[in-house]
C-alpha cells in the first residue's frame, strides 16, 4: 500500500494534471487527486463526455458527477485506504480500458469499519496525445452493500 501511495503521489496531485500518456496513469492520478483533495486535478483527468455508473446510479455528464458525487468520492478517498489488488489493461489506439479491484479499508464517521472490495471499470480516450477518462463504473463484491445502495435509490424513486 505504501508503495502504491508513493506511486500515486508521484504521478499526480497537482492542478496541472490534464490527462496522462498512459491509461493506467490517468486512473491512478485521478485517485491520487481525490486523496490530495485536489478538485481541479481530478476534473482535468475527465473527458467532458464522461458518464459515471456508480453502485447502480448514473451521473450522465462530467458536470453532474463533479457537482453531485465527486465531493463524496473525495471524502471517502481521504477517509480510507485503497489498495490496488488486480489490474488489467486493454484496448488499442485511442480507446483503452483499465479494470481494477481495490481493497478499501478505513473507518466511517461513527467508527464503523469500512472493509470491502471495490470493482472499477474505466474507459479512456486519447486526445491531443493524452488519455482522459470517459467512463467509470464502480461496484462492489459486497452484495449487502450493493443492495443497500440500490435499495435507497429505489426507495427514493418516483413510481412509474
Amino acid at each position, binding site marked *: 500500500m505504501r508503495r502504491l501511495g508513493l506511486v500515486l503521489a508521484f504521478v499526480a496531485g497537482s492542478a496541472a494534471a490534464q490527462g496522462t500518456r498512459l491509461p493506467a496513469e490517468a486512473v491512478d492520478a485521478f485517485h491520487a487527486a481525490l486523496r490530495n483533495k485536489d478538485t481541479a486535478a481530478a476534473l482535468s483527468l475527465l473527458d467532458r463526455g464522461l458518464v459515471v455508473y456508480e453502485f447502480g446510479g448514473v*451521473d450522465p455528464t462530467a458536470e453532474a458527477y463533479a457537482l453531485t458525487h465527486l465531493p463524496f468520492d473525495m471524502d471517502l478517498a481521504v477517509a480510507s485506504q485503497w489498495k490496488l489488488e488486480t489490474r488489467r489493461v486493454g484496448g488499442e489506439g485511442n480507446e483503452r480500458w483499465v479494470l481494477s479491484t481495490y481493497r478499501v479499508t478505513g473507518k466511517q464517521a*461513527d467508527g464503523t469499519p469500512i472493509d470491502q472490495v471495490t470493482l472499477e471499470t474505466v474507459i479512456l480516450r486519447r486526445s491531443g496525445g493524452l488519455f482522459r477518462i470517459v467512463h467509470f463504473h464502480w461496484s462492489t463484491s459486497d452484495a449487502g452493500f450493493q443492495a443497500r445502495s440500490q435499495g435507497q435509490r429505489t426507495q427514493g424513486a418516483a413510481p412509474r
Partner: protein
Amino acid sequence: MRLATRLAAAVLGSGIAFAQAGHDDVVRVDPALKRLAGMITAVGEPDAEGRIYTFRGTPIGPPASTPKAYPPGELRGWRLTFLAGQRFSAAFEVQSNTDSEITVSAAEGPLNGIAVRDVFVVEEIELKR
C-alpha cells in the same frame, strides 16, 4: 428544492442531483473539507483591459445544508473551482466575497470565459500553485 438548485440540476443534465444516491448514504464519512457549491447569476464588469475577476452567484445544494447566501468575507483564501462551463476544472483563489458576489485573486489570471449558469465550488483549502 430552491429554484437555483433545480436549475443547476437541469443545466447539468442530472435528474438525481443532490439526491443521496448509491454509496453516499450507505457509507458515512466526515467531509474532507468545507465546501459550498454555487451557480453564477451575473458576470462582473471587466476592467480596463477586459479582464474579469468578479461574478455574482448563489449557493446551490441540498436545502437542509445549503445557505441562502454566502457568508460575507468568510470565503477569503478559499479555493474556487469551476465544475461546468468553458472554464471547467479551472481553479482560483477567492480574494473577497459579499453575500452574493465573489472576487478572485489575479494570480491565476482572469475569469474570462465564465457565463451565467456556470457551476462552481468553493472549498476551504489553499490553492496549490
